[in-house]
């Protein structure tokens, strides 16, 4: 049986003792001190820190044990199945970590002379070419730090494009399906567009008639995920692209779901003008508990001139950073991207190669359909939309019947699954499926692990029928039992830092 470590590990501010140190710096050389003299005079009186920051004071082993204990209360892909739909939680190859940890990258400064950074520029340049080839785009910009950052850049590129054509004031509408991830509408709004929601049809695909009715001379573009968040391929993509393009809009591809079509079909060939890639999903780089990832953006030829500066260029001999791009939108961050993450993606592509990436796609689809097949017919679960349509990388079940009958919701299933030593699927997304359980096994888990998962879901659904209260109170085997998430956001209890905690405590027992 699974039991997660459950340390009674206090918040670090209550550990240690004054005077302990976890790290000491080299002594400043005497010559330096002699030349500089008293430091006191170097900082204006009003700018000196008088109250030292109230950081904890711990020795090195105390720091290590504290964070190791915390890590033992965390579940990662290396712990077991992590079928978090839309997140593509696949195995992160160890060699990638080892190689990316090199001081030849770590201690490389972004403003170094180009002659001293040819190795890293070569890696980045080639990675751009490979990603362009894989997505079917003309050029790729590696700068965005995550998928949503890429979306924001994509929307800004649309803005630049329409502005260039003198149509920005008119093209204010961004069309987004109701199945889309929250970052799509949020990114579009951040770039100044109005969001127009397009409904999904019975078949789980964009309702083409509704799309036709929604497009107009106001359309800036359409943001689409394909395969979509139901795991279904938008089979009408040809027509969709025509409709949007004929209205003068651009087609944006949310690459969160690129995994199942790698080296099989390409967004560029389907008519997409702009794509982002979630490197930390498709290309096997670790999520790090919420980043850092990377969200490169690919574009068709006519949009390339708007990409952020600098562009990496190669004259056949040397790699160079080119800032002379008069049409560029400018910068969306400092420097050139999350290079350490991008290096891991480079290694990933190098390791797998064309055939390997195609195998990644196919097995991710096989695994998703296998799980779908084994869960079909479990009492309490249904498979909304396109009952007969094969899924790609993920499948979305609804636990609505189970909830109606037993009171056990998708959330409760998720929590109970944790007791079995598997991570929960994504829940309540996409919004168009009630009580959604969004399951993405990825290609890196073996059949036996998938069987274990299926068995756990079956058991929980039957437990819901016989002893629902047991499921409702789950989890039991995790570091802590069910947490009160509402309390964390309630104005009265809201404690977002140790400082706020101390302030609250002082106020209640003066």
């Amino acid at each position, binding site marked *: 049986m699974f039991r997660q470590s459950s340390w009674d590990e206090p918040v670090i501010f209550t550990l240690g003792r004054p005077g302990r140190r976890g790290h000491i710096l080299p002594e400043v050389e005497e010559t330096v001190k002699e030349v500089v003299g008293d430091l006191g005079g170097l900082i204006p009186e009003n700018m000196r820190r008088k109250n030292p920051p109230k950081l904890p004071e711990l020795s090195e082993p105390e720091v290590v044990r504290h964070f190791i204990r915390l890590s033992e*209360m965390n579940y990662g892909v290396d712990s077991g199945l992590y079928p978090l739909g839309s997140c593509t939680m696949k195995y992160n190859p160890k060699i990638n970590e080892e190689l990316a940890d090199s001081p030849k990258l770590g201690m490389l400064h972004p403003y170094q002379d180009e002659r001293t950074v040819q190795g890293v520029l070569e890696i980045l340049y080639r990675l751009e070419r490979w990603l362009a080839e894989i997505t079917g785009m003309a050029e790729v910009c590696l700068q965005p730090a995550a998928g949503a950052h890429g979306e924001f850049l994509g929307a800004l590129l649309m803005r630049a494009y329409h502005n260039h054509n003198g149509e920005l004031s008119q093209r204010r509408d961004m069309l987004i399906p109701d199945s889309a991830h929250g970052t799509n509408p949020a990114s579009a709004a951040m770039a100044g567009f109005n969001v127009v929601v397009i409904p999904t049809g019975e078949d789980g695909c964009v309702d083409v008639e509704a799309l036709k009715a929604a497009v107009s001379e106001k359309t800036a573009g359409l943001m689409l995920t394909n395969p979509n968040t139901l795991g279904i391929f938008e089979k009408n993509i040809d027509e969709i692209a025509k409709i949007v393009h004929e209205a003068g809009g651009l087609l944006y591809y949310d690459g969160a779901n690129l995994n199942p079509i790698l080296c099989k079909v390409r967004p560029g060939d389907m008519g997409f003008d702009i794509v982002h890639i979630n490197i930390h999903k498709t290309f096997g780089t670790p999520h790090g508990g919420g980043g850092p990832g990377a969200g490169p953006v690919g574009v068709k030829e006519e949009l390339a001139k708007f990409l952020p500066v600098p562009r990496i260029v190669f004259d056949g001999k040397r790699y160079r950073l080119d800032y002379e791009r008069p049409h560029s939108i400018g910068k969306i961050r400092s420097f050139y991207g999350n290079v350490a993450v991008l290096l891991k993606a480079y290694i990933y592509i190098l390791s797998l190669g064309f055939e*390997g990436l195609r195998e990644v796609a196919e097995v991710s689809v096989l695994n998703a359909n296998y799980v779908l097949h084994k869960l079909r017919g479990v009492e309490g679960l249904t498979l909304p939309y396109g009952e007969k349509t094969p899924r790609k990388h993920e499948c979305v079940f609804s636990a609505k019947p189970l909830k109606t009958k037993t009171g056990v919701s998708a959330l409760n299933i*998720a929590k109970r699954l944790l007791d079995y030593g598997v991570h929960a699927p994504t829940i309540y997304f996409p919004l168009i499926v009630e009580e959604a359980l969004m399951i993405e096994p990825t290609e890196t888990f073996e059949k036996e692990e998938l069987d274990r998962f299926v068995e756990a879901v079956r058991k929980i659904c039957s437990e819901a029928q016989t002893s629902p209260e047991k499921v409702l109170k789950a989890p039991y085997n995790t570091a802590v039992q069910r947490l009160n998430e509402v309390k964390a956001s309630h104005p009265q209890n809201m404690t977002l830092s140790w400082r706020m905690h101390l302030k609250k405590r002082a106020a209640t027992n003066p």
Partner: protein
Amino acid sequence: MAKRCHPYIPNSQLQTKKEMMLEIGIKSIDELYADIPEKYFLKKPLDVPKGSTELEVKRHIEALLSKNKACADMPIFLGAGCWPHYVPAVVREIVQRSEFLTSYTPYQAEVSQGMLQALFEYQSMICELTAMDVANCSMYDWASALGEAARMASRITRRAEILVPKITHPERRATLQVYAEPAGVNVKEVEYDRETGQLNLNDLENKISKETAAVYVENPSYLGFIEAQVDEISRIAHAHGALFVVGVDPTSLGVLKPPGEYGADIVVGEGQPLGNPMNYGGPLLGIFACRDDPNMIRQMPGRIIGLTTTVDGGRQGFCMALQTREQHIRREKATSNICSNEALCAVAAAVYLALLGPEGLRELGETIMYKANYAMRLLSKIDGLKAPVFKAPHFKEFTVNFEDAGLRVSEVHDALLQRGIHGGKDVSKEFPELGETALYCVTEIHAESEIRLLAEALAEVVSAGRRRHV
């Protein structure tokens, strides 16, 4: 490759695949792709690599990386938003723990307490450093954090303008512009004093108005000097109903007064120097903090971890708080689109700060100041060099002007590189009014001997230049 079972893909083993297909009732995986229109399928292989073994990959990557010249190959005196600092071994050990490294955003709190607590501790330490009350668990970097701060200030004040010092990092300035423009927020520059670099308060008074959502300053500034008029700037901003936004290099906060003590409403900054390698400029770690004011907290971008208890109240725990601000719930009305952020870099920062503690952080600040000032003293002794350009105290970066030596920054740079030293960043084009000027950075990693080497090399370059020009 596909014929063999790939090491990362267990079910690529033929028998497993067959069993699974049999179970599903298909004869070929192609059937699962049957709904994709035929015309889209690739007709020929793509121009990508063929696939390699681990050993081949290792050789290839090491060969490529060896073409780079990094800090171990030559002393590098670059800063400007990404700084060389020592990363203690403990930090690397913790962030490589696969339970942290390979986890997703902690949506399932009960099984992710470790990450949640580590991020809560990061937030809390940032609050202590900056003397603010609330910090989020990271933005992409300082530049995008500044962009988000401008938008947040505009939402709070319902005004549409931010005033920034003319001496702001050009990449941050450009990013701010790109974030602000779609929200209808104008960015205006405030002049600086040519002698001291300090913000020109008259110009600030002239430009600030009822339209001003925020006044922004950086401390230390982009060009390394300390902006000492912060109390006055804060007063002016607040007197006009604007918010005061401050950008920081956190390594300075063991010795410099924290922004929370001079009236900052929002603090942004770059957390990379806290335990994160430079990595050629990314990943970085955007710091974002604000005051304990419900109106501000509600407008914060990004993930925030909060303290809570189990449902039965028996035990303390952590979970994501205030998610109703975020894109997955609020969609186009969210305070930001940010989803994945730089969580693991935040954990690195927390470990780093825990190792240093208050004393270590003060020592770090003092060591940096000693060394940077030492470098300034040595360089300013060289005939024809001005270091720093501004008459003001500096922290770890400072400007060096080569006008009086009759040299261009690019010439000096080339000559230094030939001597195995990487000089500072050329800022002559960014601030033409300063003439031939470079921005140098010195931290605790620079030994006294390296600084002396730099001074000797510069002295040589200057005198060689003089002979040439005479």
